[in-house]
């Protein structure tokens, strides 16, 4: 897209893997990108669940602990609501309510983020801990990086931690 060089920048750290918080992160990210800002989303810890290629539950990893964690956390389809989760029923109900009010669903927001050229980066350290490789992530993940890269890229940017 043909855009001026002096663009405003926003970096969003997606730490939480909660459904509502990830929706908030992607809403800010897509809104910012659509209003001419350069956006980077840096996913770490629980946030990585939103980037897994397998959107359901899968025993990813080598060790028993990593497999257990990855299976229990699941992927994009299993993100819990931060409050009133009720064993995973609430995110489904919330999805239905969002649809009823013409609010974009989480997969639609992820697709929009990609279409808008938002840079999606996954945290190397958290991937090591959870034994999740780049091949386990969706293709939209452009880079696997650490905090130094994130800070370098976020110079002169607003940083939002979710």
């Amino acid at each position, binding site marked *: 897209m043909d*855009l001026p060089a002096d663009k405003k920048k926003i970096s969003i750290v997606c730490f939480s893997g909660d459904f509502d918080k990830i929706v908030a992160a992607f809403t*800010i990210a*897509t*809104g910012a990108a*659509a*209003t001419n800002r350069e956006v980077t989303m840096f996913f770490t810890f629980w946030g990585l669940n939103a980037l897994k290629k397998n959107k359901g539950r899968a025993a990813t990893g080598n060790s028993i602990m990593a497999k257990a964690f990855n299976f229990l956390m699941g992927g994009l389809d299993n993100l819990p609501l931060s409050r009133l989760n009720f064993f995973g029923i609430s995110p489904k109900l919330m999805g239905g309510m969002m649809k009823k009010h*013409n609010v974009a669903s989480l997969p*639609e927001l992820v697709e*929009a983020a990609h*279409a808008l050229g938002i840079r999606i980066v996954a945290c190397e350290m958290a991937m090591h801990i959870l034994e999740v490789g780049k091949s386990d992530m969706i293709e939209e993940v452009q880079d696997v990086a650490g905090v130094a890269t994130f800070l370098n890229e976020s110079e002169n940017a607003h940083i939002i931690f979710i």
Partner: protein
Amino acid sequence: MKHFLDITRETCPMTFVKVKLKLAQINKGEQLEVLLNEGEPLQNVPRSCEEQGYKVLSNEPTDEAGKHMLVIEK
């Protein structure tokens, strides 16, 4: 060539997102008509288009209450 986009059924942030993506698809010099609701979209879509260097040629209320038609030139 004139293009058309109706964002009256969209909510934030897809109102901006759809306009941005549509503008990216069309050629320079072409026009895009956007049907939008009063309130947040009307306040911010024209402003954000101008910030991105696009020209808002007109912004008129339609016969249907609460809706406006924008004409943007890329």
